[in-house]
């Protein structure tokens, strides 16, 4: 079942399927390790629900929900 990364709840992990959106968006995310086949976990949510902290490739990054919207994942 394919989801958007924003749809995952804290503690849930997904496998990255692809990135949509602009080429800049894709470039930046790719450089940060958001690439197809990698596992990504939702770790924490900011007080106002946005952004959220994810862990990928063994490190943590903060991403806005509007950017997480462009990433499709499969739940694992």
């Amino acid at each position, binding site marked *: 079942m394919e989801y958007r990364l924003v749809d995952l709840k804290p503690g849930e992990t997904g496998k990255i399927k692809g990135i949509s*959106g*602009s*080429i*800049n*968006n*894709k*470039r*930046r*995310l*790719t*450089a*940060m*390790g*958001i*690439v*197809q086949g*990698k596992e990504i976990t939702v770790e*924490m*949510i*900011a*007080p*106002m*629900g*946005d*952004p959220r*902290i994810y*862990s990928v*490739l*063994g*490190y*943590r*990054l*903060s*991403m*806005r929900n509007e*950017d997480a919207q*462009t990433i499709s994942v499969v739940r694992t």
Partner: protein
Amino acid sequence: MNKIKDEFIADPKNGGSPIKKKITVVLVGNPNCGKTTLLNRLTHSKESVGNYPRVTVTLARKSCVHDGLHIELIDTPGIYALTSQSGEERETREFIHSGQADIIVNVLDAGNLERSLFLTSQLIEMGLPMLFVLNMSDEAHSRQLTIDHHGLSSMLGGPVYESIATRGEGIKALLDGMVHMHRQKVSPEPVFLPYDAHLERAVEKVQRLVFELHPGSFDHNQSRWLAIKLLEGDDQILVQEGEHAHLLEMVHRQRYDLARDHGEECEFLFAAARYGFVHGMVTEAVHAPKTATGFLDWTNRLDRIFLHRFLGIPLLLGLLWIMFQSTFSLGEIPMGWIEAGVGWISATVASHIPAGLVHDLVIDGIIAGVGGTLVFLPNIIILFFFMALFSETGYLARAAFLMDRSMHAFGLHGKALIPLIMGFGCNVPAVMATRTIEDHRSRMITILVSPFMLCSARLPVFILFAGAFFGEQAGLMVLLMYFLSIVIAMVAAVVLNRLILRRDENPFVMELPPYRLPTLRAVMIHMGDRVAGFLQKVAGVILVGSIVIWYLQAFPRHEILNHDYDAEIARFQHMPEAVMYHETINALKMKKSQEELEQSYLGRIAQAIAPVFSPLHFTWKDTVAVLTGFVAKEVVVASYAVLYAQNDGVKERSESLRRALSTTMTPWEAFTFMVFALLYAPCLGTIATIRKEAGGWIWAGYSVVFSLTLAYSLSLSVIWIGGMVS
């Protein structure tokens, strides 16, 4: 092919001598990998020997001598990739290709290898000799990661070292490695990333054509790199090769075919291949215990407190309050010393220089102007102590995370919060604090917006005006000004975002490094660099600005005044002491200086441009105050004191000045002036800082024009509304 490489390393520009006495080493790595700390360790944190000013970034240059070899080390900004997307990436790349670099030292976060090595996969294709440093290896050890150096080294085609830069471990070995690499002319085995057959075929085709088009100018590595960049659709390289229509057409066709066959843009096929290569390497060379939780335990625990849903923001505000209080309250004590010191110097110098032009220039121009800036030094030192603490511990990224939602509503980055709050104290450190914002565009918006924050230098102006015109409601008016400054800063951010600065969609993705204990050394170096930068550059502009303003006030000399004040003063001084004796002399002196000001260039300029301000109901006297406020906003009060012939040493709470002032304007006109004073052009110190931080006079000019326009139009609206209401 090896021969070509050897010549390349030996640097043909060096007059045929294969061994250079001096080598240039460029440090490249991700943000937060400890690159700058490592650089300072390598060079024993010697004074920076200069910079390479580039368009968007400045590459710091430090040097050391090791084993008889002069090594010049270049620090590059932290980057995650080597595309041409950001200025930082572009300029790092250009520097590597400029022929000035002999060796690349790739600094890797040992505890975060897989992500760090993505950049490496792009660096090794650039064909320069490389050294790899696994920095922060203590963190990797504490997570029980074992890294096979030998295996990694053979896969990367260069020696691998280990270091803990914060403690100075592994530094000598690394320096030895550089010297060895240079002396032995160890050329690394060229590493070719294994792309799949389709990509490889395309690379070869393009590479062959590149070779033909640029005969003799590239070796194998370089032409391959160029071919890969072309296929990746690198904007800068495409433009660079723009004259070769034939080449571009071929690249375009290959890209199109590959994208069609693989269902993915060519660029990301390459990225996937790189990550595949990196993953293979990490799987082989890094061994983690099965039980590893992945992330550091105490970082988890601290995050549960600092990023708590309800506690997180109050904690952040508490910490900011401590920072703000320390910066401006604690700073006041040494500020007093500096003021006293400047006063002493001024008095000492005054007693040694005979009265006259030189005396006035030195005392009223140079010492007063530079001294006026120097008093900010304690603020800057304390602020940067906190900034260093926040960023070295990793808390800064957390603060940005917590505030991002609120700041984002105004088109600002989460990290903009700190500069904006600092702005309430002084705009100079506020603009300097924007350095923590990596995204260039967000940073420029923050730089342009933070001078709207009501700084402590503007407060005296509002206290004076509120007291003079709004009596009982004075406190409320000052509060209103604070409120206005926040609203306007936010609205300006939205406006700049929408209208003026080009909108390119950079996603807000920010690494959250593990919490780290800062070392005193790192904090000190961080502070020292900032302080030195402040003193050098700002003081230069301030010096010139103060002399100019002094000149405008003091000249032309020997004008005939309406009244022979000196004679009258002398007459009073010869009279027997009587009641009101001192007051009369003082009053005469003030009247004299008022008339001198009126006839000075400054007064004449003010009278000439006063018509511009007449829609705002400003008189030429208000215009003089506005003009002198350019130097520093608190000067406005001093100017009014002179303009309304008040005694020396007038403070904003002075009753007589209030009374004098209150008869000259209506409350609405006063409010108009307050709005104008809040918003119009940042002071000279801030302008100088903007020029330095934003990298050019254009931004400083932009800031001045933008704020003047805003100040004028808003004040105009206020006076119109006032006219309609009353």
